[in-house]
């Protein structure tokens, strides 16, 4: 059992959970994720470790409610617990001095770039973060990122806050304006967004790393369900990734594979509603 030390809403349907987990906290590095199983009979789902506190022995998860399992997690309060948390999983982000590092996060993808920003800053980079949301309410972690980045650019689809438009619009501006060359772009978020980021940085040849989010089961390389194609080679995102050279990723295939359980996901959520677990979790 993993105790929740802190729980709060970051935005509508986005929950911030601080979870007691000393072993994971001690070994966590940027890029790592965990797999959680909230209760017996629920699914195992991957979540990025958004922050880790070695001293306090906790990790932070940022969860967006999209289906049954994330609904269960979002209903948790301080003092509740999660049945299973395993990690840190995956390979850590390659951290070195790239000069100017630009991080592009969309939605809860912003949780992935937060620890990357901290580590890149420590490695001596100038760090800019472009973070996108549908509207003002969906821009998350701006304050936390501002504390570590040289510049943070919030973007909203509806123009209600910050840059009006997609994160790629802001990224194009930044690449064009920058006196110094952008040394690396790291991106995490919806597949369509990562694909657009990769397309934008391909011509100028800016090294770009995408954090992929395929459906996972075990997270240890045992099932192959998380397989992604990287320049025609099959890789298992949970052990070979989840970060890959964005210019080599087959994003369309990733997108297709994310649809595998649409029908079942709907049924699962309906089942949860019938159990009355949709709102409260008592």
């Amino acid at each position, binding site marked *: 059992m993993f105790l929740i030390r802190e729980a709060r809403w970051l935005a509508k349907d986005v929950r911030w959970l601080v979870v007691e987990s000393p*072993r994971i906290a001690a070994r966590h590095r940027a890029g790592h994720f965990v797999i959680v199983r909230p209760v017996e009979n629920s699914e195992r789902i991957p979540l990025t470790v958004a922050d880790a506190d070695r001293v306090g022995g906790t990790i932070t998860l940022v969860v967006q409610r999209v289906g049954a399992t994330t609904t269960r997690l979002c209903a948790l309060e301080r003092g509740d617990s999660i049945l299973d948390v395993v990690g840190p999983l995956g390979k850590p982000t390659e951290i070195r001095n790239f000069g100017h590092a630009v991080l592009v996060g969309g939605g809860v993808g912003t949780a992935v770039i937060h620890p990357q920003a901290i580590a890149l800053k420590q490695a001596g980079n100038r760090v800019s973060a472009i973070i996108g949301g549908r509207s003002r309410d969906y821009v998350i972690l701006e304050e936390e990122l501002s504390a570590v980045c040289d510049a943070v650019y919030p973007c909203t689809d509806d123009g209600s806050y910050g840059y009006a438009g997609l994160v790629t619009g802001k990224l194009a501006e930044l690449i064009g304006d920058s006196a110094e060359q952008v040394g690396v772009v790291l991106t995490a978020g919806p597949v369509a967004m990562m694909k657009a980021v990769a397309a934008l940085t391909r011509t100028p040849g800016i090294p770009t790393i995408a954090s992929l989010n395929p459906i996972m089961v075990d997270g240890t390389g045992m099932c192959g369900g998380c397989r992604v194609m990287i320049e025609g080679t099959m890789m298992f995102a949970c052990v070979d990734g989840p970060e890959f050279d964005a210019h080599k990723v087959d994003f369309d295939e990733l997108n297709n594979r994310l649809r595998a359980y649409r029908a079942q996901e709907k049924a*699962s959520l309906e089942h949860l509603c019938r159990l009355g677990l949709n709102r409260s979790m008592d």
Partner: protein
Amino acid sequence: MKPAERMKIPRQSMPEQEAGERARNFQEVNTGLAREAARLEAQRCLRCKNAKCIAGCPVGIDIPAFIEAVAEGDLDKAAAVLYEANALPGITGRVCPQETQCEVRCIRVGKGEPVAIGYLERFVADWARESRKEGGAPPRPTGKNVAVVGGGPAGLTCAGELAKKGHSVTIFEALHKVGGVLVYGIPEFRLPKSIISQEVAGLEALGVRIVCNTVVGQTVTIDELLGAEGFDVVFIANGAGLPVFLGIPGENLLGVYSANEYLTRVNLMGAFSFPACETPVLSSAEAVVVGGGNTAMDAVRTARRLGADPATLVYRRSREEMPARIEEVKHAEQEGVQFQMLANPVEILGDEDGWVRAVRCVRMELGEPDESGRRRPIAVADSEFEVPCQVLIEAVGTRANPVLTQTTPDLATNRWGYIEIDDNHMTSIRGVFAGGDIVRGAATVILAMGDGKQAAEAIDRYLAGKRASMADETA
């Protein structure tokens, strides 16, 4: 009883759920011999002086001795003989390939059917689990700490043996449950999970500590276990669980699974009772499974139970070369599984929406024997055909998982990534031992258990040596 009388008794058949019925449920197929049938079967044993069956058993169970005890009705003694050599007879009695190990060497094979050693082993183990009390005082604690990596049959056996010798043992398991392939791979209808949980409870009663959700190499390293965590010895038994794919076009279409993923969803995650269990698995009108081993058989029979009609097995050699247990092949056939022998998939075909719709295969014929001694399958020209399916499962083997070895660079591995050991199961790192599939490559439950037991003995000697040398130093 005279040998001639013994020879007259026919081999008892295993009672089982009716095929049509069981093809729709996940309950165990074999229901176990009744007491009287077990006694009769035990009387079939001729009590050979130089019993050949023993040599066929990888852990050397004194087979005639336990069978004689069954014939005499002394089940407690039978159990004692079994447990002496084999910590988990309720499991091996169900999953061992008896037809290539013990039973094939039975003297009766020349004149009919062998003694049903596996059925009897299972009978005694099931009786013992329900009725037998483990006696004996708990061992004196040695004060030594052993970490076991991986809770499959090799790890569980090693942990139990070491605990019985008084060592303090902790099992670190990556998943949320121990059992390894026994819980995520082999289905309920062949090996009920309650058997494994009872065995695990027995280990805990012996004082074994089980820590799940720990991927050694990621959550904690071998160095840390031997250092800050205070373990004297580490036994690595993390299996060979990385699935291999065929490498043909169409493998990323929706509906294509590795057998490991398919079986894990159904067995470990309980997808057969979706949505009560929330992990989904795709069910389909038609399913195809590629392969000919136990894994393929488990996958195709699972697909059948999830409603596939037909559920078809595609295998590139012929039935004789199939590595699966004979009983599984027979059961699959009875349950209505279709066999496409001498067929090899060359491409998985999808519809315009990205879902599997069929697999294109080519006919094979058998040529000269290859290095495995089996006749090599060769493609027949212009023989392509399609088998329609909406779910396709590949059960074409597994490899060593690199997660642990990558983070432990001092650990010597061979060119396939399997860990190298010496005669004492010790790896290239002092105090670190290994066994099971991570040493042998995908093998069997009983071999993994045998490794666990042998390694436990070697570890016990090693720890005794350490104690002795420490005594020397302080003297």
